[in-house]
């Protein structure tokens, strides 16, 4: 796939030497050395928390390094704000877009850079020219709110180019895209490098990295481990460089699906508050004992709503939810939890944890009515502590102790604590929304292991994920959620990420006709 494996052309435009940055307690950067050449895509890969983001923030002037030097275009620079970085020709596209929905593409691009080409025809000409040169197809007069994710990303890139960037940093650009959009993005990146720009591409999706990058720098524990030409490594080798050890994979196992229905959802419908729009539209689904049902979909198509509707967290839901023959319709979230639903929420910081409470108090959360953490109307401190200790040991939560605040743990360890907690009290159904999002590879493997083990033990699992590999690797069935409806089901044995991608964007509907 990679058509540019030839030796990287061009001179070095960005040179980082011995960059160091310390935050108290957080993984810092030290001895970071990177050379980025003109006309190349240079990928920076590493686990979450390895220090990629800090490094990019340093290069974009958001944070100042404690030591080391930055050279751009051969000159040593001192970047103390993003404005300095922009002036030096460095632009950044963040993972979360920073666009004003109610403005047009042109207005968004020009916003904040009015001095360059004014706001009238000059600006329009420049935008069209840039779009033409780099193959970034967008209509300058359409409102951003009408654009899809991929197009929004192109607008962000245009913004950066408009400000004269010669070096573009893309932070996890594919995380929000479906496979087809990823391909389009990569085509754009090839255009950019063909025009002599340098692209810094941050990712942890190694296959993508290998398909688009010319050189790959691996970051581990805050420092650069090695820089290799993309053509000379496999993704497995890269991954091992990232974690410094052997890799896990979510490989499927023999089916443990039984014919005992655990969760039965019928005609679940949810209207957007104060409107006729259906966020969920007549959802029917069934999960059996020992079955993992995966839900695929582009974010925002009703995944969060589906989970919250089943958990009883949303008012205004119609339809029936039964758990093991027990009708849960109209019951409170607490009653549903008591009936045996474990819940690993999508956003662990907002929904899963009390960040400023110690771990053992977090063990009580969601189990306020169940032993061993409570006794009658009182919280059983001793019981909760003992059981938290058990989770810490069984689920390998890396922490100095159970009195540590949840906030202090890394994402992976927070997630392991949540999974451990939700597996407590013998649940019959586990709802896991993006259970391994933003956790490191080690924690990811552990969480996959726990889910698979629980499935063997007869747990029914509703798995929501944006990671198609995870879905394919873990699920017994995959259903695709599109605009609030379950549109298709796949057998993970015989499905490719591309098939899923088509279904997720709605392209497959046309094919079927």
């Amino acid at each position, binding site marked *: 796939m990679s058509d540019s494996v030839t030796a990287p052309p061009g001179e070095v435009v960005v040179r980082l030497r011995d960059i160091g940055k310390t*935050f*108290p*307690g*957080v*993984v810092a950067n030290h001895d970071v050395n990177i050379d980025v050449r003109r006309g190349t895509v240079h990928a920076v890969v590493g686990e979450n928390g390895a220090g990629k983001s800090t490094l990019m923030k340093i290069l974009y002037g958001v944070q100042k390094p404690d030591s080391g030097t930055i050279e751009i275009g051969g000159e040593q620079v001192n970047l103390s704000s993003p404005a300095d970085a922009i002036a030096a020709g460095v632009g950044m596209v963040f993972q979360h877009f920073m666009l004003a929905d109610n403005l047009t593409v042109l207005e968004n691009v020009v916003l904040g850079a009015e001095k360059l080409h004014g706001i009238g025809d000059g600006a329009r000409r420049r935008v069209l020219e840039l779009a033409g040169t780099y193959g970034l197809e967008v209509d300058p007069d359409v409102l951003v709110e009408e654009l899809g994710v991929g197009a929004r990303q192109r607008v962000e890139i245009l913004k950066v180019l408009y400000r004269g960037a010669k070096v573009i940093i893309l932070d996890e650009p594919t995380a929000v895209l479906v496979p087809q959009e990823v391909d389009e993005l990569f085509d754009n990146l090839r255009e950019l490098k063909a025009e002599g720009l340098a692209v810094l591409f941050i990712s942890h999706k190694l296959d993508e990295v290998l398909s688009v990058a010319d050189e790959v720098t691996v970051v581990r524990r805050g420092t650069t481990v090695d820089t290799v030409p993309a053509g000379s490594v496999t993704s497995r080798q890269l991954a091992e460089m990232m974690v*410094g*050890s*052997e890799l896990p994979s979510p490989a499927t196992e023999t089916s443990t699906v039984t014919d005992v229905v655990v969760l039965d959802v019928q005609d679940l419908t949810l209207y957007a508050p104060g409107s006729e729009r259906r966020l969920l539209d007549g959802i029917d689904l069934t999960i059996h004992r020992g079955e993992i049902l995966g839900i695929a979909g582009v974010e925002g198509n009703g995944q969060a709503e589906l989970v919250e509707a089943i*958990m009883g*967290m949303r008012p205004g839901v119609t339809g029936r939810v039964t758990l093991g023959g027990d009708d849960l319709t109209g019951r*409170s*979230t*607490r*009653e*549903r*939890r*008591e009936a045996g639903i474990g*819940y690993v*929420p999508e*956003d662990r910081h*907002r*929904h*899963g*944890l*009390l*960040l*400023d*409470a110690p771990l053992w*108090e977090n063990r*009580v*959360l*969601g*189990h*306020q*009515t169940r032993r061993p953490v*409570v006794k009658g*109307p*009182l*919280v059983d*401190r001793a019981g909760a502590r003992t059981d938290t200790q058990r989770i810490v040991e069984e689920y390998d939560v*890396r*922490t*100095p*102790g159970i*009195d*540590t*605040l949840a*906030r*202090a*743990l*890394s994402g992976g360890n927070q997630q392991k604590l949540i999974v451990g907690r939700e597996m407590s009290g013998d649940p019959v159904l586990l709802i896991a929304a993006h259970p391994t999002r933003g956790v490191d590879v080690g924690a990811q493997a552990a969480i996959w292991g726990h889910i698979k083990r629980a499935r063997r033990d007869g747990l029914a699992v509703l798995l929501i994920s944006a990671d198609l590999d995870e879905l394919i690797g873990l699920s017994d069935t995959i259903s695709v959620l599109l605009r609030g409806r379950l549109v298709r089901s796949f057998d993970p044995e015989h499905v490719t990420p591309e098939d899923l991608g088509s279904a997720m964007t709605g392209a497959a509907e046309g094919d079927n006709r």
Partner: protein
Amino acid sequence: MSPRTTRVVLAVGAPVLALVMAFVITSLVLLAAGDSVADVWAQILSVPGHRAIVNIINAATVYYLSAIAVAIGFRMNLFNIGVDGQYRVASFAAAVVAGEGWLPGYLNTLLAVVAAVLVGAMWAGIAGLLRVTRGVSEVISTIMLNAIATALVAYLLRKVAVDDGGNNTATKQVPEGSRVPGIQIFDDVTVKVYGFVFLAALVGFVYWFVLSKTRFGFDLRATGRSETAAVASGISVKKMIVVSMLLSGGAAGLVGLPLLFGNDYSYGSTFQSGLGFAGIAIALLGRNHPIGIALGALLFAFLDEQSNSLQIVVGVSPDIVKITQGVIVLTVVIAYEVVRRYRVRLEQRQVAAALDEPATIEEAKA
């Protein structure tokens, strides 16, 4: 230092830091005004006499109840600014009930206490209901309810006021038998510690027990820490908002009672006002902790009492102490935030340190 010691040092360090900052700022104000800094502090920080000690305990009792009422809301992330209005409405109601004397002796007192709690809870409950049904911020509604409380009490007071021949407008006096006797702790002064100091202690204990030991308290604190996580854990946040507003208001209802039954014996135009706002300051200062609040209440009462003779002895207006108290509130918020961030970083460092070792070992194995 062990983690536990560190935690204690940090917990104590923040308020101490705040106090020092407040004293420095007050000193600067004094300097700018050309008053003697040394004389003022010498007076304020002098050892209080017996009468002053009793007065401090009494004032602190009242402050304590007020701060506990505020703290109940704070623990839920509810900002009950309306303790001021709640305690005035409740004190008035209690004064009317007690003054009528429908029941004999202490039964009358008990009835008045119940009335005060119910009225205070009801007044705060309005704000709670508005919040859950209409989404009105409790900050706004309680401020409005304070104003309404002032007008309502003024209106009703004129209806029930008795003409005692003087210029003070007040409710009927509480009958002798229903008054709560004070405790004579010093023989050489006539002032006594309010009997209701025990009520305050009891309220503090119940507050501590319910919040830190019970399921309900856990739900309340969880909701305060993260409403979204609370919802996901199965807590009905709306119910918690109403219940905790009722509890906060009920506690607020008790605020005026030590005064009513221990000193004033009627609710009138000279009844102490502004206690609710002092309560907010003290709850912030005491970090919503029952012991912290007690210390904060004593500090505020101490400063008030010592300021009383400031003008007589040093010739500086006692207003300077109000400035100190105001500055303390601000410095406390800043100091706690600074310490909180420091503590988080410290913990992260500890976590990082704890993780490094086992991780390296595993790596070595692999």
